[in-house]
């Protein structure tokens, strides 16, 4: 495929195309709808691989750029580009979307609407990670909100309406401040521009006070999404109430949008502010890690526990970010990717269990390992990855984040190491309650994980293992981009 | 010659009387009449100003003519509405017309 072909736009608009196709399929042809969506997400995945084939690993700057004038009056462009960091996210999105689409078989009602929203969500996420224009970024960012509202609200659990509107308003409240921050950047730059790359070049001209204010405004938007304590309370509700495939995307991709925003916008454009707030972010990060783990420990609902564990794990991303060093950044970026994979898989597994037992109370299970050996093995595998077992990918991110954090903030990192211990605690308690112990006769008839369900987790399993053993694979792609960000920042950092 | 201020005070008094009427009349027609009084206060203002401040142009006087015309039209519309109200409510007391409260 030639390089001039707008590959990135293809990745963004394929799902939209899929929606248009779905419009013409009658809603009672459910099988056709499912297959079509599956094909669309699969092709998107393929496209993301083709993007990689055309991607030059050694070039740290955004590649395959596409630029079209969109709203010339205010210098807004349709501007896409991909670098190592965004590629990792694009691949994650494409992969998780495909797997979630396969896992969406558990959705039984209003199927056509479901897939329409699903594909819209995919397009939004893709666009967010590819946009190089702040306006475009914001547009895609907001686009993800609406389908997510419906996906949680219609197909969610018992408290779906509450969870959906909470998610929606919370994120919206954050992102409107982000919009103000973006506008402030626009008006302060000369010439006025929304172009992330140009703004990065201009970063040295922004006064510290200005940077700080804008940083805070952007922080609201991103922190809600990550989520950073104390903006995290939407997460347990949304994750728990969302249907399984949506929880996967929520935890796997949507949370990353916040962290990605820090990487792509806050840090390069506002380096001094990033430096100024580094300590505060580190403090919040450690609260995330420890506090999230604490709360996860107190959960009896399996899914809720995984949800809070996300809070804890995303803390490592923030810690790595706060470290402002290559090691910390790599850790954060790796943790972003790995958390997406691991937690995605965890949600899939919780879904497998819930589909069979219709409960998620961990105390209600017990001894499942006897008649679900494969499921148990997979669950134990991902649990171990989640608690940061070396050799699996979860470790690398946490390890590098902590190492980076340790360089910058000793005491804080020491405290966050406590989080690792607690994580081991709640994960093991979960394994014990669900899989080990005497068998609960009630679940004798529970069937083993099906082939289709296995298909959804095995790719993730392979990734976790491969990246755990050989993280260079991912780091070589991500690091050049991170180094560029750091170098750009380095010019203004003390 | 009567100074401008006298006209203006008269106009202000008329305006206040009209306003008072608007506030205190129960009957819609009473309010309508009060409004007309206010309108006349305005007219006095215009004519007085036209005479004292801009004697060369006729703008003030013309304005008053228009105002009188419009007032007639608006009274017609108002009365028509009041008639409709009376049809529906069998009253023209405005305090009894409150179907749409909060």
């Amino acid at each position, binding site marked *: 495929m030639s390089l001039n072909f707008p590959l990135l736009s293809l990745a963004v608009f394929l799902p939209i195309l899929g929606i248009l196709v779905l419009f013409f399929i009658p809603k009672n042809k459910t099988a056709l709808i499912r297959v079509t969506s599956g094909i669309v997400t699969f092709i998107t995945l393929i496209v993301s691989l083709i993007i990689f084939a055309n991607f030059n690993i050694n070039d740290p700057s955004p590649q395959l750029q596409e630029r079209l004038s969109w709203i010339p009056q205010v210098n807004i462009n349709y501007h896409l580009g991909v670098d190592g960091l965004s590629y990792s996210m694009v691949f994650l999105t494409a992969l998780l979307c495909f797997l979630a689409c396969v896992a969406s078989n558990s959705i039984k009602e209003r199927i056509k609407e479901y897939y329409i929203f699903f594909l819209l969500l995919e397009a939004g996420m893709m666009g967010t990670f590819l946009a190089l224009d702040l306006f475009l970024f914001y547009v895609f960012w907001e686009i993800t909100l609406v389908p997510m509202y419906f996906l949680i609200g219609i197909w969610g659990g018992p408290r779906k309406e509450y969870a959906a509107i909470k998610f929606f308003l919370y994120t919206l409240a954050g992102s409107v401040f982000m919009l*103000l921050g973006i506008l402030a950047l626009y008006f302060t730059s000369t010439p006025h521009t929304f172009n992330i790359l140009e703004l990065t070049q201009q970063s040295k001209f922004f006064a510290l006070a200005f940077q700080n204010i804008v940083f805070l405004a952007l922080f609201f938007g991103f922190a809600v999404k990550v989520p950073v304590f104390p903006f995290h309370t939407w997460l347990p509700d949304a994750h728990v109430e969302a249907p399984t495939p949506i929880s996967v995307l929520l935890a796997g991709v949507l949370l990353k949008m916040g962290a990605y925003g820090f990487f792509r916008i806050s840090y390069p454009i506002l380096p001094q502010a990033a430096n100024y707030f580094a300590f505060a972010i580190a403090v919040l990060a450690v609260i995330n890690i420890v506090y999230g783990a604490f709360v996860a420990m107190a959960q009896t609902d399996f899914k809720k526990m995984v949800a809070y564990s996300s809070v804890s794990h995303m803390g490592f991303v923030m810690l790595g970010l706060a470290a402002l060093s290559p090691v910390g950044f790599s850790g954060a970026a790796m943790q972003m990717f790995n958390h997406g994979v691991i937690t995605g898989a965890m949600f899939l597994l919780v879904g497998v269990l819930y589909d069979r037992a219709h409960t998620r109370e961990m105390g209600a299970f017990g001894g499942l390992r006897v008649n679900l050996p494969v499921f148990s093995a997979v669950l134990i595998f991902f649990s171990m990855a989640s608690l940061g077992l070396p050799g699996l990918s979860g470790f690398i991110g946490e390890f590098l984040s902590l190492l980076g954090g340790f360089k910058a903030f000793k005491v804080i990192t020491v405290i966050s190491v406590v989080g690792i211990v607690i994580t081991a605690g709640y994960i093991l308690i979960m394994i014990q309650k669900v899989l080990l112990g005497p068998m609960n006769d009630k679940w004798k008839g529970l069937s083993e994980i099906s082939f289709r369900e296995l298909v959804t987790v095995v790719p993730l399993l392979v990734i976790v293992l491969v990246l755990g053993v050989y993280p260079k694979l991912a780091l070589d792609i991500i690091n050049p981009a991170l180094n560029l960000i750091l170098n750009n920042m380095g010019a203004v950092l003390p | 010659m009567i100074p401008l201020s006298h006209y203006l005070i008269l106009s202000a008094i008329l305006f206040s009387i009209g306003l008072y009427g608007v506030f205190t009349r129960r009957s819609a027609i009473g309010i309508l009449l009060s409004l007309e009084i206010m*309108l006349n206060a305005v007219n006095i203002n215009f004519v007085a100003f*036209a005479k004292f401040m801009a004697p060369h142009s006729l703008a003030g006087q013309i304005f008053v003519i228009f105002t009188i015309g419009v007032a007639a039209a608006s009274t017609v519309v108002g009365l028509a*509405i009041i008639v409709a109200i009376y049809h529906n409510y069998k009253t023209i007391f*405005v305090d009894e017309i*409150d179907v749409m409260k909060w």
Partner: protein
Amino acid sequence: MDLLLDLKFIQPEIILIIASILVLMLDFMFKSKRLLAYFSLFSLCSALLVLFRGSLSAHSLFSGMLVSDPLALFLRILSVFITAVVILISIDYQEIGPGMRSELYSLLLMSASAMMFLSGANNLLMIYLGIEFISLISYILAAYWKGNLKSSEAGLKYFLFGTACSITMLYGMSIIYGITGTLDLPQMNQALFNNQFSPVVIFIAILMVSVGLAFKVAMVPFHFWCPDVYEGAPTPVTAFFSVGPKLLGFAVLLRFLLGGSALFYQHWMHLLGILAIATMVVGNLTALAQTNIKRLLAYSSIAHAGYALIGLVVNTTAGYVSLFIYLSTYIVMNLGAFAVVIAVSNQTKSDEIKDYAGLSANSPYLAAMLSLFLISLAGIPPLAGFIGKFYIFSSALKEGFIYLAIAAVLNSVIAAYYYFNIIRVMYLSPASSSAVKIKPSPALNLALVLSLLLVLAIGLYPKPVIDWVSAALAFPSP
């Protein structure tokens, strides 16, 4: 100045006035009242055609009473558009009997011409006449629903407030006239600058004039009439009220403040800012608790006026551009939302939000469209509403009105809540057993699709609209 030449400039207005009279006459000839609507639409279209041929350069008409400038042209085109859409959505509105249709169309056409006159008003007298013209028609339209308690009550309220406000405005005008000795806006500006009167008097005068206009745009604290009138009036008329007079209110406010008293403006822009915030807050907070969709849209339209006011507060060309971009997008999406409301109430005879339950199951396309309009009203990209909000926020930030920007974004979050509440009812609540499938009529469909396409088009590719609005405001009025 040749009178005939001037008349040429107001051709479209003349067409519409003649058409409005013809409609009344044709009522006796046509059995099918639909034809009346088609005739009205036809006349609107021809007016539009004439307008499109109009020149973009600025002219002073009728000894400065009217001005024909790009802004006026822009407003006139929008007025015709609004009226056309309102007629489209009223064709199949069943609450209005066939016997009353000709009056409806005639009145709408007249108000269209009134709005068009007001678009170019450059003289206090002309402003007064234009506002009275629109107001009188509005009073009739509000009270128009024969035998309906709410409608006549709405009419009475509207009438009494409206008249009180216009008299206040008139009193203010008289004082200004007394101070400046002129009614012409540009001369007035000059005279106000050179006068020796106490500024307090001038403030009070300007304020009193502004009251009449603030009443039209339903700015807090002059908004009390709005919900009652919106609820009481027939729905197409409500749709008209929510956009038409509001647009012109803003336009005249702009002309009056900018052209007439620009020099005093800086003294009270923060006051206007506070009023803008109050308008947003009151509108949004009150809308939160509403259970009737018409009333909800009424309060939300108050809130939207608050956002739009920001464009006026910042007092730069960019601000005015954002004001009119905002109003254009608001007009499109609000009309769309009302079109759906009419479609639903045609079938269910209800405007209660709870009766929208399960709409997505029965009529998915209608629900989807209403959702899109509401999402657009909430200001979420990539729909038209976002472009409007984006411009408003950016104009506020650009001029350093950070408090306005923050207030506006917070309010947009509150607004999102009640808009999504409707969406929640449509999509998330189970349908009641009595729910029926709703099939909008072709005319309604046309209006819906038109609005939808515009909402999408402006959202996805706002360049032409922005160009157009910018061009309209490129030349300040002569």
